[in-house]
């Protein structure tokens, strides 16, 4: 989609890039810090940085630059907080046909356990897991965004799954 002429210094290009990426960037920041406002601040700072340095950034690497900037800014400024996520209000259960009160209660309990366990994951595991689950990104994509290898993404994903499974089944 990008020819060599595409540069982020062009306001239109920047706007397109911004509108396209801001939500997923914000999600990513949120997985890290667990605070919506702080996440948006991080994202805005990262975009500002991209705008300032637009001449130095290869358009094709801009996404990676964005995510890396968020990571760095996060490490620089934000204190770790417990990341407790909320479920969408009308989120369907796995078995939409089963409407028995027991089942619904069971599932509600499971969901609580899940959020608590996700919060206990390490930051790198959590971001990979949630980028895959919530943002529906493929491992390859995540690897590109984080500037790491796909193998590393898979390792983190696998570790996250094992922890989640073990913890949930234990409780």
């Amino acid at each position, binding site marked *: 989609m990008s020819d060599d002429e595409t540069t982020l210094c062009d306001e239109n290009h920047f706007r397109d890039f911004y509108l396209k990426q*801001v939500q997923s960037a914000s999600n990513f920041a*949120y997985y890290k810090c667990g605070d919506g406002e702080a996440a948006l601040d991080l994202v*805005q700072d990262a975009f500002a940085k991209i705008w300032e340095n637009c001449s130095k950034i290869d358009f094709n690497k801009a996404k990676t630059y964005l995510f890396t900037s968020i990571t760095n800014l996060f490490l620089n400024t934000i204190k770790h907080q417990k990341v407790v996520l909320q479920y969408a209000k009308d*989120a369907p259960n796995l078995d939409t046909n089963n409407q028995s009160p027991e089942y619904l209660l069971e*599932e509600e309990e499971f969901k609580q356990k*899940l959020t608590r366990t996700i919060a206990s994951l390490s930051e790198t595991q959590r971001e990979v897991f949630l980028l895959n689950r919530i943002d529906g990104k493929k491992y390859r994509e995540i690897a590109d965004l984080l500037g790491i290898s796909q193998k590393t993404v898979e390792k983190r994903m696998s570790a996250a799954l094992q922890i989640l499974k073990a913890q949930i089944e234990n409780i």
Partner: protein
Amino acid sequence: MKKEKEILKWLNNDLSSKEMEDLKQSEDLQTLEKIAHYASQLETPKVDAQTALETLKARNHSKKKPKERTINFKTFYRVAAVLVLVLSSGYFFFYSNNTSFETQIAQRKTFTLPDNSEVVLNAASKISFNEKKWANKRTLTLKGEAYFKVKKGQTFSVKTTDGIVTVLGTQFNVKERKNYFEVHCYEGLVSVTHNNKTTKLPPGKTFRVINGKVENVEDFYATNPSWIQQESSFNKIPLDQVIAELERQYDLKIKVDGIDTSKLFTGSFTHADKEIALQAVTIRLKLSYKIEGKNIIFYNYGAQ
């Protein structure tokens, strides 16, 4: 967790329905399915992208121009100055090899040049030459007065601000002072170039320029300059030049009071006795002098 590879593929949507069935058969996926399902139901704070963009724009941000490096000229000049100093001093030290001899007021010195030519420097004078190049080029620069006894050989040149004196091998005296340029030839043949005009001087001849005017001078019969014998001789020389010479031979400051210093003086004064020297000049011109500290004042005889 067995079948890790397949599970990862599954969550990456890379599993075909057939493979999915196989996986379900071989492993208890119940928990994982729930995890996978409910995790994707999680919500993140929604960003109003347009508003956020406006907020970002409202920030006072500016594009960083490709870095402009401003040269700090202060530092630059410092470095440059040091470099120039080091290089030029190195150059003079290693390459130019200028040798110079100098005399102060009331001083006289005799030097031997690299080719054994002899130079006698009169008071307050200086010669300098390149010792390394001397074998090829016998050239020196003179400020003041000097008597040369040159060994036979290549051209020997004396550069002064008023002209160039060139000889092959001879004895001559060059006097270059303020508004005064004089060359005496005692032996051989001396050629003097002044204002691009060359004059050849045989022995006993004098080339003299005072205040930019070439003057005719009578022949002389001395075999060397009188100042070599501790005496300064003058033949129709304006008084200011004589006074300048007195000041050079004795550490004096001479002022005049109501005297025309272009008055010509013929005669000599000794370098050995200040009183006698002052009298030798003043009496002949019908002048008197008085001493006020380091200053001597010349005035017309009988005027005070």
